[in-house]
């Protein structure tokens, strides 16, 4: 998957997890937590959905990489390039 496809996929996951959030104005370089009302359970779900949909395994120590859209896409690009 190319970075822009990964971005779309993350948006899709966010939409699934938090359907009542308005994602249209999402800023890629701002932390998710500062734009959306996501708690730790929601973050866990992002990780779980990635694993469920794409078999991507993210170790707990790397969860901080998922702080913003930009950092998430950057982190996932090497992991998802062959999907």
């Amino acid at each position, binding site marked *: 998957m190319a970075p822009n496809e990964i971005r779309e996929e993350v948006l899709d996951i966010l939409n*699934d*997890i*938090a*359907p*009542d959030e308005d994602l249209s104005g999402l800023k890629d370089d701002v932390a998710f937590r500062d734009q959306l*009302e996501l*708690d730790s*359970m*929601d973050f*866990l*779900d992002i990780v*779980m959905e990635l*694993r*469920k949909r794409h078999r991507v395994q993210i170790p707990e120590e790397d969860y901080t990489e998922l702080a913003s859209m930009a950092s998430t896409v950057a982190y996932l690009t090497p992991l998802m390039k062959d999907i």
Partner: protein
Amino acid sequence: MYDTIIIGAGMSGLAAGIRLAHFGQRVCILERHTTIGGLNSFYRLRGRNYDVGLHAVTNYTPRGTKHGPLARLLRQLRFRWDEFDLSQQLGSAIAFPNVRLKFNNDIELLASEVATAFPQQKDNFQRLLGRIADYDDIDQAMFEVSAREVVAGEIDDPLLVEMLFCPLMWYGNAREHDMDWGQFCIMFRSIYLEGFARPIKGVRLILKKLVRRFRELGGELKLRCGVKEIRIDGETTPGVVLDDGTQLAGRRVLSSAGWPETLKLCNQPTTQQQTGQMSFVEAVCTLDCLPAELDHKETIVFFNDSDEFHWQRCNDLCDTRTGVVCSPNNFDYPESEIGSSALPEGVIRLTAIADHEGWQKLNADTYATEKQDWYDRLTASAVRFVPDFRPRVIETDMFTPSTVRRFTWKENGAVYGAPQKRLAGTTHLKNLFICGTDQGYVGIVGAIISGITVANRHLLTDDL
């Protein structure tokens, strides 16, 4: 081989099952009873629908709210707010002999009632609200401090302290006399800060939605399949044995049966202290009119007939000093639904503390006469605080601690479970976990959150 075997198809077991099935686990929920729901079930009797356990769903927050347990569970289970069809309470009251405090889903009402009835406590009450707001769910350090001590440190009128504790103990406290400060904060938020609501169709609406989702996700639900034993192999369990002797293998087992109940399934000894002591009787009375026609418009009335509130196991079969009068009609249902088949008649539910051991000792004949006798005594006690509905009762069904025991297999018919909760949800075995009332949260929302929390924390990892 199942990824997870869940014991119990109540709210917590079903919620955990949904989380696990959603993320692709092969899950089997085993329920001994003929139907789902456990402590919050439903049944039909002589042409009428009844709810077990449900007075109201607590933790009500409106559509669009993003914080709080209700919003969290809807997100985690992927339900829309509308799907639970929640109508808000009209208003409730704490009724002691000389003071009645009204409250509803807006804390301002209670605050103003307190300021009127207890003018010296007005600022103290605000300070208490501040401390409750500051209580941090994540930091468990303050959890086990005595709530009575903390509250008495802010409110120096003992009557107000008793009155504030009354509904929180009722909804519910597994421990006698006192509660943990952490538990107090959770209950205070769920009842006074968030509040009550109810789907007009009752608890079956929520349960049916949970089951449907679970099955859609590929989960298996086996009714009339009680678990006789949790098998042990060193520090793990390979699975369970059913009542009929069938063995089922699972990578993990999650039990919502309760802590002493789960220990029994593991052939482990249990102690008196581990088992809950609080049980109840409840009479569900069908009326030939709506409660409002008797000028009873309150949703829930928590009454107590002296200035001191006693929350303890009773010495007699029932304790008539305190009780709960709940009217399922007194919610803000849509106009079009009122009087419909969803809730066709007036209903009043009357609950009192009861002694499980006493009721268990009765033979069949005495059981029936005692029920009748206590029904009369309880209703007589309640109508000191609400309009006298007794002449309008056309049908009653009454449960006792024995009923609870019979259909949920909870030790002592302890509806709120064991006094000491196991917040981590772990057990003496590496792949056995518990959820439900004995993990830490009671009520419908509490149980669902418990199932979700334990599933997330322990069952969605790959460590096993």
